Each structure stands twice: as structure tokens, then as C-alpha cells.
């Protein structure tokens, strides 16, 4: 398999022509070997229209044992045999491609739309729909029998939360199947990115998932830097990395608080709710915005951290740290909390690998992946992040996901502190050398707080985006939540959902 793929490092670009374009059979066999024998996962799989009306299908594979990304393409007409049959990881990607370009993967086990929009290039609809699709209107699994019943929730949920539609097939209190239909947050980002970059591109990236702004802007910046040729100053890379870790700490803290809230353990819920804000305010101290908007741009960062601010932030971290761990320890030491979390919403390691779970959810199942280590880039090259010590007995349940978050908070907090004590000297921003190079493909992966975020850009002959593919970690993980609910009580849905805490807008784009 080794010679079939184009192998490139994270955050680099290569001529599009250097990505081998092979026959479908060759593609399937090579990818199958990589996924099944070498435990690689599908980081991205997307279609791109070609001039003759065919589509070039490109996969990006990522593994834990190599710092290279594997790229391979084949050409598809209107139909091709589904890859999902052999590799379940492809199922969501193939549904996405069918919806975006009307290309039908034959014998896909459950081919449904995922976002409910018309095709991007006005190709005929894969399901033969002629009217504009209505969100949520599609086929669902139905369980029949006198005691069987269906619970439908959403799109509007009870709390202050994004919209999505959930259908549970239940017998009494027990859930047999959960289906998740999204698309309500679809704003058409990928379509608007075509022909870019322009003045709005940066802001589409920052708002692709509003709670993942730093990760998203960093990934986009790396793509632009790879396409334009630019060496980012060390100081900027350090500021990006520490802002990314602050984003991680803030979100994990909020999630632990929300988990506590869902099992009615109010002390941790209220303390973490406030402490999350402290970390957001630290980000605002750096760039004026609590979510890190306007901080990361192609070429570097827009705001420096002067010595006085480093000292202020360090003192601030020192002050908050005991309060944070006090609130978290309280919750992990309470038997009634642990009882609700343990053995709830379990996803097995085999399933996690088969469906391609990433990030916190994947690590909680015992998968060791972390692209900050396997594919280090930017600040993580200058200051390698220490391997995460896995918490004991990661079994893929709610407790494991909470424990992984706890471990990562500790780990990231130390990393932020290390950077603040020793920021590299120099500028924080440099000009891009040129406009994006023509006919190139660039891939960048960032370990966002939910998991790996993969951007792939292909430029046309004028250096404009011919395709820009965003794969949010939630895209991989939503199906994991559906699996976690099987055999659970329906009343455990809120804690299962919070333990994943996936992004709707990052998925819907």
C-alpha cells in the first residue's frame, strides 16, 4: 500500500497532479488495507467536480504511527459501489457526497441526506427530490409491536442549545435505536468558500463552529500559509497554541459543569459554569473577544502578549487553578455522581475504531490518538506536548469521557503555563509571500477541543479555492452518540449527549 498514496506532512501543500488518480478497485483495495491492517482513519473524503462533469473523489487518511497524511483519488461518474460496506467509517462521508453532488454510492446501507439542501453544483438530486428538501423529512428506522413506541425530539430543544432532531425507538424506558438528523444549522459555508479566499473567508472559518474559533482559524491559517509560502514567527505559533489550549480548558470545564448539572449535582455545575468564564476572559484579555475571534490570521496572530500580560495571565491561572480542581474533584469524589456515569452510554473500542471516533470520545474508548502528538505542527513542534497519561480503565462510558476531559484540563493548563513563562522572542505576524499557488492541494489538521479538525483546500489555475472541505470532529462523532444510546434508558440521554457535547453548526456548516 505504501507506494499507492501521496504522503505529505501536516499543513503542507502539494501539486494536485501529484495525488495519484487510480481506478476505483485500486483505490478501494489500498484504502481498505490502510484502514483494516494499519488502523488508519478517514480524516476527510470529498468530491470535487471536474470539467467533464465527472467528480474527483479524494481521501485523506491519518494514523497514529506516522506523521504523514495519505492522499489518494479516484474518478467517479454518477454512481460507484459504496465503500461503507467494507469500511463503516465512510458512511457519513458518502451520505454527504450524495447530498452535495448527487453521486450515488450503490448499496450504501442507509443512504439518507445529512443536511437537507440542494446539490452544490445543481446536479440531479440523489434521491430524486425535485422540490427544495425539508429538514428532517426522510426515512427513519421504525420499531413495530404493541409495546414499542417512538420519541421524537427537536429541532427546538428545551434548553439554550442548537437545533437537531432525535428519534428514539423505545420499548418502555429502554432505547433500542436512536437516529440523529441534523442540517438545521446549515448556512452553506462550503459553497460560499468556493472562489475564495476573499474578505469574508476568515470570518466564515471563525464562525464555522463558534466555540472552536481558535482551532478553526488556525487550521485555515495553516492552509493559507502552506499555499502561499510563509514562515510563521515562533512567537505567533506559541500564542496560537496557548490560545488553542485555553479554548480546550474553557470548553472542557463547561462540559464537566454541564454533566454535573445533568445529574443534579449542583455545586460543581455552578462553580464550573463560572470558572469556564474565567478562561474565556483570559482569551478576551489576549484579543478582546471571549471566543478568540480576530486572534489568528494567515501569517501569524493579530495580538501580541507583552511581558506584563504574561505575568497577569500566569497570576490569573494560579488563582483559578485551585478553585477549578476543587470543583472537579468534588464531583469525581461523589459516589452518587460516579454511579450515574459508570457503565452509562458505553461505546466499545472496536465500534469506536470501526466508525472512526476522534478526539475526547475516541480517547475515552481507549484509542490513543492525539494529532498534537502524531502530527505536531506550529507551536506543538516548538514545544512538544507531553503524552496524555490515560486515566485508568477507559471503557468508553460517560465516566471515561468525563475523566478524559479532566485529564486534558490538567495537561493543557500546564502547557499554557509553560508557554507563558517562555514565549519566543520576535514578531507575531508576517506577510504572506504571495497569493495561493495554482493547482495545489493543501491539508491541515488541528487537534481542536472536540477532536481532530481537518481542512483540505484545492486551488484552481488562478489560485482560487476550487474546493474547500471542512471536516469538524463532530462529523465523525455524531454517530457515536447514536451508538452510545443503544440499550440505555431514555432518561440517560442528556448525560450521554453532554458527555460527547458535539457541535451542530460545525457539522452542518
Amino acid at each position, binding site marked *: 500500500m505504501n507506494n499507492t498514496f501521496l504522503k505529505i506532512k501536516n499543513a503542507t501543500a502539494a501539486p494536485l497532479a501529484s495525488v495519484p488518480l487510480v481506478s476505483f478497485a485500486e483505490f478501494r483495495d489500498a484504502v481498505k488495507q490502510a484502514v483494516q491492517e494499519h488502523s488508519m482513519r478517514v480524516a476527510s473524503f470529498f468530491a470535487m467536480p471536474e470539467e467533464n462533469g465527472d467528480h474527483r473523489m479524494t481521501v485523506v487518511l491519518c494514523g497514529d504511527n506516522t506523521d504523514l497524511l495519505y492522499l489518494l483519488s479516484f474518478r467517479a461518474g454518477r454512481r460507484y459501489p459504496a465503500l461503507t460496506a467494507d469500511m463503516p467509517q465512510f458512511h457519513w462521508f458518502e451520505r454527504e457526497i450524495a447530498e452535495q453532488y448527487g453521486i450515488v454510492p450503490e448499496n450504501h446501507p442507509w443512504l439518507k441526506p445529512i443536511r437537507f*439542501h440542494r446539490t452544490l453544483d445543481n446536479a440531479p438530486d440523489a434521491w430524486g427530490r425535485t422540490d427544495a428538501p425539508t429538514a428532517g423529512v426522510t426515512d427513519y428506522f421504525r420499531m413495530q409491536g404493541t409495546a414499542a413506541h417512538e420519541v421524537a425530539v427537536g429541532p427546538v430543544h428545551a434548553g*439554550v442549545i442548537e437545533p437537531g432532531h432525535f428519534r428514539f425507538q423505545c420499548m418502555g424506558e429502554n432505547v433500542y435505536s436512536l437516529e440523529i438528523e441534523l442540517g*438545521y444549522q446549515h448556512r452553506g459555508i462550503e459553497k*460560499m468558500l468556493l472562489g475564495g479566499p476573499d474578505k469574508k473567508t476568515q470570518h466564515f472559518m471563525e464562525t464555522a463552529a463558534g466555540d472552536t474559533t481558535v482551532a478553526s482559524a488556525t487550521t485555515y491559517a495553516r492552509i493559507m500559509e502552506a499555499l502561499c509560502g510563509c514562515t510563521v514567527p515562533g512567537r505567533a505559533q506559541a500564542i496560537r497554541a496557548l490560545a488553542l489550549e485555553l479554548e480546550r480548558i474553557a470548553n472542557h470545564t463547561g462540559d464537566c459543569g454541564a454533566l454535573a448539572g445533568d445529574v443534579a449535582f449542583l455545586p460543581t455545575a455552578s462553580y464550573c459554569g*463560572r470558572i469556564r468564564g474565567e478562561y474565556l476572559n483570559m482569551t478576551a484579555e489576549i484579543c478582546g473577544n471571549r471566543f478568540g475571534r480576530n486572534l489568528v490570521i494567515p501569517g501569524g496572530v493579530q495580538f501580541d502578549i507583552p511581558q506584563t500580560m504574561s505575568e497577569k495571565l500566569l497570576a490569573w491561572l494560579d488563582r483559578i487553578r485551585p478553585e477549578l480542581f476543587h*470543583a472537579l474533584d468534588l464531583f469525581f469524589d461523589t459516589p452518587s455522581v460516579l454511579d450515574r456515569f459508570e457503565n452509562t452510554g458505553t461505546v466499545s473500542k472496536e465500534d469506536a475504531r470501526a466508525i472512526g471516533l476522534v478526539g475526547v470520545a475516541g480517547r475515552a474508548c481507549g484509542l490513543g490518538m492525539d494529532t498534537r502528538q502524531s502530527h505536531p505542527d506550529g507551536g506543538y513542534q516548538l514545544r512538544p506536548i507531553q503524552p496524555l497519561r490515560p486515566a485508568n480503565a477507559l471503557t468508553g462510558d460517560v465516566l471515561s469521557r468525563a475523566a478524559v476531559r479532566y485529564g486534558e484540563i490538567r495537561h493543557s493548563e500546564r502547557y499554557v503555563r509553560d508557554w507563558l513563562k517562555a514565549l519566543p522572542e520576535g514578531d507575531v505576524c508576517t506577510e504572506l509571500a504571495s497569493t495561493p499557488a495554482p493547482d495545489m492541494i493543501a491539508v491541515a489538521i488541528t487537534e481542536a477541543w472536540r477532536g481532530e479538525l481537518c481542512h483540505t483546500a484545492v486551488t484552481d489555475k488562478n489560485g482560487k479555492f476550487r474546493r474547500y472541505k471542512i471536516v469538524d470532529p463532530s462529523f465523525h462523532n455524531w454517530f457515536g452518540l447514536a451508538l452510545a444510546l443503544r440499550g440505555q434508558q431514555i432518561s440517560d440521554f442528556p448525560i450521554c449527549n453532554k458527555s460527547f457535547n458535539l457541535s451542530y453548526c460545525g457539522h452542518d456548516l
Partner: protein
Amino acid sequence: MFNILKARLVQGYRTGKFPHQPPVLPERFLGRPVIDGSKCSAEISSQLSEMCPADAISGCGNDLQLDLGKCIFCGKCQEISCGGITFSKEHAVAALTRENLICNTANSRNYTPEEQVRCAITRLCGKSLKIREVSAGGCAACELDFNVLNTLAWDMGRFGIQVVASPRHADCILVTGPVSENMALALQKSFDAVPDPAFVIACGACAISGGIYAESPETRGGVCGMFTPDLYIPGCPPHPTMILEGLLRLMGKRFLQKKA
């Protein structure tokens, strides 16, 4: 049990002092912009309107204006405007009418936030406001920063403001996001379920005007095409202080501010 009681003592009372004291905002925070059109030549003005990613800037000279309903507070205009546009730290940016979101040279001098007059809102919701939040294509940032008002750091419950689960229990809906096509029906149904007189709050640039998503065929460009909001809270996302200040002003609440 004892650990929990001890925790209560250790963690202490942490609710912020706003609105009884001025808000604590970061040094680099961008608040309401101050416009001085006389400082911008025609050339700079046209550059400004061209480079603004949200298409919020128009006019030149004394007619130079910035539409806060579109502005995403990226601050790019500040860098090239030669002092024509400067962002202050003023957090009272919310407006009760769409026109009052337009910042220009005239209304930048001696800016005072628009006061609520006695009306159905103050009569019915002056002491308590029940909000049903509907996220319609938002990026989750507005939702999150509205949600933090429920945490003990802000505790909006002390002003009688509460988030309710059902629109039937609500006085108003608070909309975030540019109203994606896929959410338009659900948003309309949520609004229809709110008992009369149902008020509407547009929170964030997307909800007010569609923000940077205004031109996407997958969105409706904000709520204004569907309803007339009673409160507009600009920002991308608005800082929690901006949201809380707006809500309190909508309810006609006044607070004497002590010096911090």
C-alpha cells in the same frame, strides 16, 4: 456532605457587580464605535466600505456610517480609518429600534443609550421576563454567551429574567443566527406558540441582519424579514454584558451605578 458544605465556603460568593457597578471589560475589548467622518477622505471612506467583511460601512465625510446591525467587531476599519472610526469600550450597544443601530458622526457625540418608554413591554414584563431562546443557524457563540447569564457569575434570575423550556410559557423569543432556511419553519412555529403580545429579541449580527451570512441562499438574512424585533443586540457574539444591559433596558429597569 461536609465536603460540599466546605466547597461552598471555599468557592464563596462570586456574582458580578454589574449593573450596580460599571462592567469589568478586557483592555482590548471593542465596544460601540465612535465615528468622526471629517477625518476620512472620500478615498479612505470607499476603502472602508470595500474592505468591511460585513458590508457595514457606507457613505463618506459627515455621512460616513457604520451599521451595528451588521458589524462583527473585527476592528479592521479602525486600523485604516485615520481616526474616523474608533471602537470605544462602551458596552451599551443594544437598541430598541433598527435605526438606532446606525452609528454616524452626529450620534457619536455625547452618545446616550436609547431609553425604554412606558409601553406594553414595561407594563407586562417590567418585573419579569420569560425568554424562549431559538437558535436558527447560529455558530453557538451567541447561544453560549447568552447562556452564561444563567451562571452564578451573572445570575440574571435576580432581575426576574428566566429562560423557559416551552414557548407557551414565554413572553418573548430570543433569536440567534441568520435564520437558516432549515430552521425558518421551526422558528415561526416557536414564535406562534408564544402567547400575545409576543416580543422578539434579535441577538447578534446574524440574527439582526444575517451578518456575514446575509447573502447565503441557505439563510433568510436574519429575523427582520419574519418579525419586527423589540430589541436588537449587536455583536459577534455580543459580550454577556451587552446582552444583559440590553435585556434590562428593554424591561425599563434602571440602576444607579456606584463608582467601582
